[in-house]
């Protein structure tokens, strides 16, 4: 699978797109394939504070549940309401299905992964 070149990534298999002071977050194709069919996404409340590396929601699939981590520090400004009615969007188009947006509090974490680094991570994981 190809990893979009314009995004940044985390070891928890989230992607991050930054425009100005706003980060948009979703999960990667690799994550979606590992989870299987997603049936419910529990997202952080708009207005809540999130911390890089801390859980802020959950992704329920048929077979398992996984924590959703925030890749950045900041305040949640928006969540993707479409996921409530159609969580399968995560499997269908993981890189076009954002989950939440965060107004950044300070700088981006320095440990976000480049596309090449993330690609290498998933390949080493099999």
């Amino acid at each position: 699978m190809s990893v979009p070149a314009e995004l940044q990534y985390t070891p928890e298999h989230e992607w991050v797109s930054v425009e100005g002071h706003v980060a948009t977050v979703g999960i990667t194709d690799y994550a979606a394939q590992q989870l299987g069919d997603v049936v419910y996404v529990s997202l952080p409340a708009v207005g809540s504070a999130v911390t890089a590396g801390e859980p802020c929601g959950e992704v329920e699939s048929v077979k398992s549940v996984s924590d959703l981590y925030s890749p950045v520090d900041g305040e949640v400004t928006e969540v993707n309401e479409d996921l409530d009615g159609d969580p399968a969007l995560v499997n269908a188009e993981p890189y076009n299905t954002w989950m939440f947006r965060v107004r950044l509090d300070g700088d981006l974490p320095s440990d976000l992964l480049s596309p090449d680094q993330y690609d290498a991570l998933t390949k080493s994981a099999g």
Partner: protein
Amino acid sequence: MTGFAGFWMPLRYSGETAEHNAVRRAAGLFDLSHMGEIILAGAEAAAALDYALVGELSAVTPGRARYTMICAEDGGVLDDLVVYRRSDREYLVIANAANTARVFAELTTRSGRYDCSVTDATSDYALIALQGPAAVQVLTPLTELDLATIKYYAGADGSVAGRPAWVSRTGYTGEDGFEVYCAPDDAPHVWNTLLAAGVPAGLVPAGLAARDTLRLEAGMPLYGNELGPDVTPFEANLGRVVKFGKPGDFVGRAALAERATTGPLHILTGLTIQSRRVPRHGYPVLADGRDVPAGYVTSGAPSPTLGVPIAMAYVVPDVVPTAVDIRGEAVPAIVTELPFYRRRH
């Protein structure tokens, strides 16, 4: 793909929900070659199985099958089995993959004083299951067997796609369907021929994930979840498989007779969840007025057919569960009669 009992198996081919729905509406094809096949043959094979298992296998007529269990002396379930009587003197025992070695060892020991041989034939058989309302339509042109004469829990020797096979009308999905036991070398041809023939009818290959949600909706127990050495058939609401009236003694009789009298220690209970959060194996089950859990979830999943999360749970007797503790949140649950799904055709 996932590691499962020493086999590398597909968890899903495309997506488990689509595979699940295909089995309910048309048909699915499962590779179950990991399952164990053990053959008991000899003049006293029937008597040996009557002693070794809780069922009355001597009462099974050739060509028919039984769902049964092998228990320890203390009544704990060592495995649940499907046993085919292939002739007067030969039985084919199907064991769960993870338990095959144990079942083979126990059957060998328990049949020691009977005139019969016990053979682990697992590597001689591939197993392909064709499940769903379109199964008859798909299989009919590929076999000379008259499928109308093969009733539920029966089987016959014949061929599928030109290759020798034992074909039985059994399954683990709650749908009509067949299981095809053939030589491993013939399996790719049988699989590919069935799949190609079935595509117009809506047949899809289906993996372990769909198999699990299908059997859960059908209220069927899974060894390691609802069944294990710490429960007897009575906890699993399957006391009917224990045949106290059969001739002779059998392993576990005394303990099972006592459990039949005292009643099960836990009640296998169906739960429907009033939330989109999903109960999972091991989650505590709560009841009003109790400050300790009333039981625990044995299997749980979002039900593709019903559109809500469902679970089976072991609950202490005389308590009505009201909620499942889903990672710290008491999510309301409604007791639901098992099975959650029963086919209409």
